[in-house]
């Protein structure tokens, strides 16, 4: 008990893992990780890792769910059974159903669904490792996977959470901050439009604190957005390289 009380999550403006209050965990973003999907990506922020696959646009089943004027966007968020301390039973839970639904709604606002009437675009997100902000990591992976599949979007969505820990507003809650912290505020943000596409909040927070946290989360999303764009450029750089080398080969053929 005493030990717990004495354990501080923030000391001298630094968090328990050494980060500044407005610092995101190290990120890793990569596309093309699932060869048999139309598009795919893996996104990690610290020890939270999500993988996403996109199938489609393809014929929509069941047929009665076909929409004659736009594609139907399906979004499934799931946890690998070994992603958390206690094994997660496979299959949808109430929690995963809700996250899938709010994430789907977020992407609905950026994907140009009208380009693919009657089809289904299916996004499958799986959290391989969970250390807070799994829905955010999932959205970031899905964003890249949709781009990797060549599906036109108004912008990449980026997602990040802010929180309140020992009364202070911090970015990208993780580890003990998640279990001991007071507030979790995950958002998804569309920089080009300055729009909030997802927002959930848990915990006691004043209006002023909320404003500060929202702004911080937004800045986090902007940073993540850059990371996603870079990862996609990396992909296109590879493609460009292949194209140029293909051209060189063409030349050699001549």
């Amino acid at each position, binding site marked *: 008990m005493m030990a717990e009380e004495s354990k501080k999550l923030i000391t001298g403006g630094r968090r328990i893992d050494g980060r500044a209050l407005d610092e995101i965990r190290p990120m890793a973003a990569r596309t093309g990780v699932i060869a048999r999907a139309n598009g795919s990506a893996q996104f990690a922020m610290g020890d939270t890792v999500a993988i996403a696959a996109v199938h489609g646009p393809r014929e929509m089943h069941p047929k009665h769910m076909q929409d004659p004027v736009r594609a139907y966007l399906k979004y499934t968020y799931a946890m690998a059974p070994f992603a958390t301390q206690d094994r997660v039973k496979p299959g949808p839970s*109430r929690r995963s159903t809700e996250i899938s639904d709010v994430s789907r709604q977020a992407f609905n606002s950026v994907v140009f669904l009208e380009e693919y009437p009657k089809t289904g675009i299916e996004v499958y997100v799986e959290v391989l490792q969970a250390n807070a902000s799994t829905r955010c990591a999932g959205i970031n992976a899905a964003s890249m996977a949709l781009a990797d599949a060549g599906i036109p979007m108004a912008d990449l969505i980026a997602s990040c959470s802010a929180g309140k820990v020992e009364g202070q507003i911090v970015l990208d809650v993780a580890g003990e901050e998640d279990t001991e912290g007071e507030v979790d505020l995950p958002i998804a943000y569309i920089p080009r439009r300055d729009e909030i*596409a997802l927002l959930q909040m848990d915990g*006691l927070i004043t*209006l002023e604190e909320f404003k500060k946290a929202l702004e911080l989360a937004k800045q986090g999303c902007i940073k993540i957005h850059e990371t996603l764009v870079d990862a996609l450029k990396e992909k296109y750089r590879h493609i460009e390289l292949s194209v140029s080398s293909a051209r060189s080969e063409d030349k050699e053929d001549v």
Partner: protein
Amino acid sequence: MITKLDKEFIRTLARDGKRENGRRFDEFRPLKIELGYAKNAEGSALVTLGETRVLAGVKLSVGTPFADTANEGVLMVNAELGPKASPEFEAGPPSAQAIELARVIDRGIRESKCVDLEALCITPKEKVWIISVDIDPLNDGGNLMDAGGIAAIAALYNTKIPKLDEDGRPMFGTDAGRLKLRKIPVPVTIYKIGSAVVMDPDFEEAEAADARLTVTSVDGFLCAMQKGGTGNFKSDEVVRVVESAYGKAAELRSAIKDALGI
């Protein structure tokens, strides 16, 4: 579902600052709370908001606590959108909409810490009270989220804890005291119709909306939020909307307290 034409009409009205029902954008329909409506529940409340009617019932049982909260009772909120309440609702396992309704109401109550879960511990690690709050919409006339959240908190306020028999099983119908609420969390959902933001939509308005934001708050604090819908809010708009939801919640809270006789 409403027709495209109806939707257009509602949006056009909203653009002009009007609602078909004549209400102001931030005006709720008359709120009525009937406590104890379902007599076999330990607590219950029927909430009427215009045509919207939601019944919430609380059942208590005795069970084992979760391992990581071994000294606390368990609170569960469940919602079914049974087909009786709307021609749009389908039979079968809870839809994503029903799950969201339950979870948003659950978080509003849980995060506000209005229920003292430690007081619901009977024997640490072994026996605690399990509180099941069931949200049962009787008619979906729009804004089930706010009506359901108010019904849940009113039903909890109405809850009597039964006495236990010698085997430690609850004797339903007996009264060992009221469940105590430390706060009254109130959800207010803001709907975005085009560029307008309205509160407490009726069914057609809710269908015409692009996005919504539910803000649950207690005195001095926000405690839970949830954005829904395929449309979005600008980031400064979110702040304004949250402020007005917080303000309206205070207003509703005193109406609720009146109805509960607090």
